[in-house]
């Protein structure tokens, strides 16, 4: 992580993302859907291309030159990712398919051996389905209770009853940053409360790690999951970080090659962490690409990335409100410092599908739907929202394009 004053993020960053040079429907693309998936810089594309062109071989077996190089590149990425989130050891980094698989790993492996009928876990109403459904599936098998932290009208966690909810619970699993509202949750406070109650803290950091300097020790997390493709990396690779003593005690998740020390007709001995959790040939090129993404973000400086998000989010909140007034309602905290660059909004009574369709004609890419957070949609009293989300390559001109394109929505659907 860079110390001191970080250089500002400017147009030179955007120029490193080849896809952003294209146009759609004859208009330059305005990509505002990074909370769903980020674009990829040349550095990441080149790293993956180079890997396939010059190194490609299976890892952790084979003594020949390129097999060793493949292993080295993959393990270098593990080291890079560990450094990026200030993990005490690279061995605590487990590569998965995505954050969803990482959360399923926690549920299946830790939950499957620690949760029973007398137990309870705590989730929040703003979780992504990836941090809900694995627990529903496990609860149906093992019969533990799931409790819910409610949200306030401005899209923050309502912690009034936190101590009561945590009483007797074994786990609190919470998002660090809402993928719908952008809300930054008080992870430090939640960690302290969970640990005080004897519960572990699992953090869905899928939206957090790509956007803020992350230190797992500072957060106080016991488990943390995130995904590569939202942080300038490729799809197909996610990460579970957990404290080594937890990983050591947890049973394997998937069985197969790589995750064993020995196999007999009677049984098997699992490999050491992290390999115990990485059955089968891993997504090597994707892991290499994730390593390149981490180094790319480190080059920008995560303090600068966060400052850019805050500045652009503030500009977006001001501009959208100035131009559209009462026609637009942006969900979530109104103060940019309390949120990330995720803007879910309602425009008049126009359905999000129709909004995104009209914006698309102007080249503006936003997401419409429930954003895999249906319990939250019910709390907000809507079936869907339109969501614009920002990243390092966005600038004020992208926000202006969104603001202007919304005028066309008003013209078409106005009464």
């Amino acid at each position, binding site marked *: 992580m860079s110390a001191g004053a970080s250089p500002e993020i400017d147009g030179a960053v955007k120029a490193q993302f080849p896809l952003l040079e294209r146009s759609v*429907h004859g208009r330059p693309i305005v990509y505002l859907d990074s909370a769903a998936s980020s674009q990829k810089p040349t550095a990441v594309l080149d790293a993956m291309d180079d890997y396939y062109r010059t190194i490609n071989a299976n890892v952790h077996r084979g003594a020949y030159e390129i097999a060793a190089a493949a292993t080295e590149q993959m393990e270098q990425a593990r080291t890079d990712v560990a450094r990026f989130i200030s993990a005490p050891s690279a061995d605590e980094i487990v590569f998965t398919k995505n954050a969803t698989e990482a959360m399923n790993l926690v549920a299946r492996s830790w939950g499957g051996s620690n949760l029973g009928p007398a137990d309870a876990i705590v989730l929040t109403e703003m979780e992504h389905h990836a941090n809900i459904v694995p627990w529903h599936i496990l609860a149906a098998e093992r019969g533990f209770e799931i409790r819910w932290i409610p949200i306030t009208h401005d899209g923050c966690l309502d912690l009034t009853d936190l101590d009561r909810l945590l009483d007797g619970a074994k786990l609190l699993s919470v998002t660090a940053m809402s993928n719908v509202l952008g809300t930054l949750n008080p992870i430090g406070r939640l960690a302290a409360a969970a640990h005080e109650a004897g519960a572990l803290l699992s953090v869905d950091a899928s939206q957090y790690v790509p956007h803020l300097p992350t230190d797992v020790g500072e957060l106080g997390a016991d488990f943390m999951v995130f995904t590569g493709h939202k942080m300038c990396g490729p799809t197909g690779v996610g990460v579970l970080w957990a404290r080594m003593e937890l990983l050591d005690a947890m049973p394997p998740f998937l069985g197969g090659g790589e995750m064993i020390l020995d196999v007999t007709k009677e049984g098997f001995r699992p490999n050491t962490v992290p390999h115990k959790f990485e059955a089968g040939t891993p997504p090597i090129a994707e892991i290499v690409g994730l390593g390149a993404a981490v180094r790319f973000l480190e080059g920008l400086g995560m303090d600068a990335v966060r400052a850019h998000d805050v500045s652009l989010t503030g500009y977006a909140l001001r501009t959208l409100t100035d131009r559209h007034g009462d026609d637009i309602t942006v969900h979530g905290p109104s103060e940019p410092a309390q949120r990330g660059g995720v803007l879910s909004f309602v425009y008049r009574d126009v359905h999000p599908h*129709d909004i995104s*369709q009209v914006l698309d004609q102007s080249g503006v890419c936003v997401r419409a*739907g429930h954003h895999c957070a249906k319990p939250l949609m019910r709390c907000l009293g809507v079936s869907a929202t339109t969501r614009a989300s920002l990243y390092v390559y966005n600038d004020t001109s992208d926000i202006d394009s969104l603001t202007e394109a919304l005028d066309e929505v008003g013209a*078409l659907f106005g009464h």
Partner: protein
Amino acid sequence: MAGLEDLYREIILDHYRNPRNRGELECPPAHRSEGFNPLCGDEVVLTFEMDGDVVTDLRVGGYGCSISQASASMMSAAVIGKTIDEIRDLTRSFKAMMSIHEESIGGDGSEALDGSGTGDSGSSTDGALRLGDLEALRGVVKFPVRIKCATLGWNALATGIDETVAAG
């Protein structure tokens, strides 16, 4: 290139702004059928009354985008007073109009379905004679992700009628 005017025809916007047969009938005697689009959370709730094999009344509830709401509104106007066989026929014609062959989409959809129906499936030609206002929804096939919106109400009605027939 497919433009917004292909999707949002004036008659569609009219049905969206002034939905016909909006509401809910008391069940029983009315029958009830629901349709969900899990991708966007849209929901349509149909209640309809039957006299013999004729749908004598139908109301549309739920919420959704302009296409799903307009399509359900137009459907309600088209099917009230019709027999089950006529409705099934109409449903087949409508869904034929909404079905596309991969090759007719072509890149950004620019070459597909210029309005003459040349890219459409053959079965829609005679159906088109009877679809009337519903023809306005033809442009939806140029926007493949919206086809599910247009067929949401129709699928719910087909399911509802099948269930009613099966229940005797």
